């Protein structure tokens, strides 16, 4: 690495319009402390200096005539090395978000950096395994709509989850966005729903709009008095049923039979939801004589016969 020198520049000397390296998510709040521990990196270019790192800090209310200390890297430093350098700096703070890696790779591709160099110079810096397919996958995250991007960053979602949002187009995008706004689902729930929707779409060879229509998606947003938590349960059930129709029929039949047993609140009869184990688990919390009597009643012929039937049906 050629030497990096501190230089004093006026803000005007830095070309803010050259956003080639503006790949990292900007910190929303830049406080004094942060300013002290971070630096702006620039590189001489035709129009003065271009920022290579530290777009965050330049966002603060500097006037064009303000004099600031920045660090300048040599003009001769090639693009691949510059990218590797800024990754290294950023990785000292935190792991990169998939969209940031996507932007870095987009820059590399724009400047015709060969895939081999990307895989063997940049991927190790980001600490991801060098696989060709990942280049396109990360790049595709850059097209994800801002509403999802913020959500995915906030939830620290892995690449696999980001990819579920990569192809969303209007108006389906809006429908999914409404869903997130209305239910504020956990990342796991959102992943589950998005994955099932994607799989249903491919399996049934339909577009997402058709799948959402089949599911009567909008219905769950108009459920007036029903608390959204219940609506979310209903929506998840509907999506699961669409994804696993036969399994759902079987599960519903078993659930219905268990309900018919009319077990008390302190008892629960459960089963392996994958149905690989053909067995029931009975949990019974005993506190009072009444609980014991109720447990005794479970042993009557009628109830045992019903449980036998459930076991057979499992």
């Amino acid at each position, binding site marked *: 690495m050629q030497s990096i020198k501190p230089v004093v520049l006026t803000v005007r000397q830095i070309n803010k319009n050259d956003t080639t390296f503006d790949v990292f998510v900007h910190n929303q709040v830049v406080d004094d402390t942060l300013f002290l521990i971070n630096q702006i990196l620039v590189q001489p270019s035709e129009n003065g200096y271009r920022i290579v790192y530290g777009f965050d800090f330049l966002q603060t209310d500097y006037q064009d005539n303000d004099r600031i200390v920045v660090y300048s890297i040599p003009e001769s430093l090639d693009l691949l090395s510059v990218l590797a350098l800024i990754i290294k700096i950023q990785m000292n703070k935190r792991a990169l978000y998939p969209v940031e890696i996507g932007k870095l790779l987009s820059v590399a591709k724009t400047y015709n950096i060969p895939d081999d160099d990307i895989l063997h110079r940049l991927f190790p810096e980001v600490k991801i395994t060098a696989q060709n397919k990942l280049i396109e996958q990360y790049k595709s995250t850059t097209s994800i709509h801002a509403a999802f991007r913020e959500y995915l960053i906030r939830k620290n979602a892995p690449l696999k989850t980001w990819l579920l949002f990569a192809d969303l187009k209007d108006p389906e995008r809006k429908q999914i966005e409404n869903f997130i706004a209305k239910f504020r689902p956990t990342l796991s729930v959102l992943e589950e729903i998005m994955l099932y929707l994607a799989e249903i779409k*491919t399996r049934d060879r339909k577009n997402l709009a058709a799948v959402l229509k089949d599911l009567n998606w909008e219905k769950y947003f108009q459920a007036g008095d029903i608390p959204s938590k219940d609506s979310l349960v209903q929506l998840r059930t509907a999506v699961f049923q669409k994804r696993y129709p036969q399994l759902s029929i*079987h599960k519903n039949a078993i659930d219905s039979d268990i309900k018919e047993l009319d077990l008390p609140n302190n008892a629960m009869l459960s089963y392996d939801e994958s149905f*690989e184990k053909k067995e029931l688990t009975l949990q019974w919390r005993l506190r009072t004589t009444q609980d014991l009597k109720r447990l005794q009643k479970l042993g009557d012929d009628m109830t045992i016969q019903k449980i036998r039937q459930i076991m057979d049906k499992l």
Partner: protein
Amino acid sequence: MNLKNCFLRIFITESALKDAVTGAIIEKYPGRIQKVVPDDYDISEDVRGMDPKRVLYLTHSKGDVVKGCPGTAESYLCCNYQVINQTQNCPMNCVYCILQFYLNQPATILFTNFDDIFIDLKEKLSRQPKRFFRIGTGELGDSLAISGSVFFADQAIRTFADVPNALLELKTKTSETDGLLNIPHKGHTVLAWSINPQEIIHRYEFKTSQLIPRLTAAARAGDAGYLLAFHLDPILAVPGWEDIYNDLLDELYLHIPSERIAWISMGSLRYPPSMKDKMIERYPSTTLPFGEMIRGMDGKMRYARPVRVPMYKFIYQKLMGISNPPFIYFCMESRDVWEEVTGTSPESNAHLDYLFAESLYKRFAGLMAEKPVRDTYKRGFSLEQIPNLDKPEL
């Protein structure tokens, strides 16, 4: 199906170069780039970026080639099958095939030290003389899809002809098996076909023989005195499965008399979870990974029991609906599934192994020297395991 030009490059290790069969194999691929390499040479860099299915690597085996089938976790029953891994990889392209993801090697590997393999085989078989083994070459590749495998099959058939306590099973999706018909097999080789409805072959089994050619090849093998076997594996839960599997089974019994069939296996689609993404990546338009799969007790993805049991029941009842039905078993299924479908279940892997022997003894007179004794199978050693020789075999 044309697999004659399947290899673009051939590597021959110095040790393999001395084997007579090596010359015979490379003659089958004229004009292909050949390179002789030291035995410890790593070809990875030479073939970087190439499909391992298009690269042939002829070499000598190291370690156990003859051994027990790895099967799956104990929560599912396996049959104590034994394997000879002489060929590793396959030129065919079945969408669901685990080999394309499981074999982490840069080439299709063929071991050419046949003599060593047969000496090892006989020695291992002699350790448990009272047990009757089923041994197959189709575990890590098709038994007959490439010429190196066919050369091995030829010699294996002749070898097994004189082995009293084992049956060789050659498992294939090809139909070019007529070259084997005149080999003196003495009834100790089972020619087996993996079969699926024609619609499934068309959609998911690329570069394989179509259904009817497979069945007519099987019929000719039966006429030549070979025992036959069929593997309905993987059974796929596709829309309209009843109709297509019904047609398949009609065709099977139309072509093949049941008394020639040593066994038929059933197994539904299953794969390690990591294979799902790889399947989607390799075959983007396939819908196979989007079936109603759950993670089974062995960690593999498989159709949920409420999905696969109805298929098994349908197929089993159809297979059993004839006089003298063949021995039918499940590959990697739970006892619950056995009981639901057949009304009974083997007690253990060893018991299933014994049931095979019992069926063969009853159905094929003269195949086994004496009636199998269940206790002999209880010990259930794989061939690579060395039984306690201090204790006499039961």
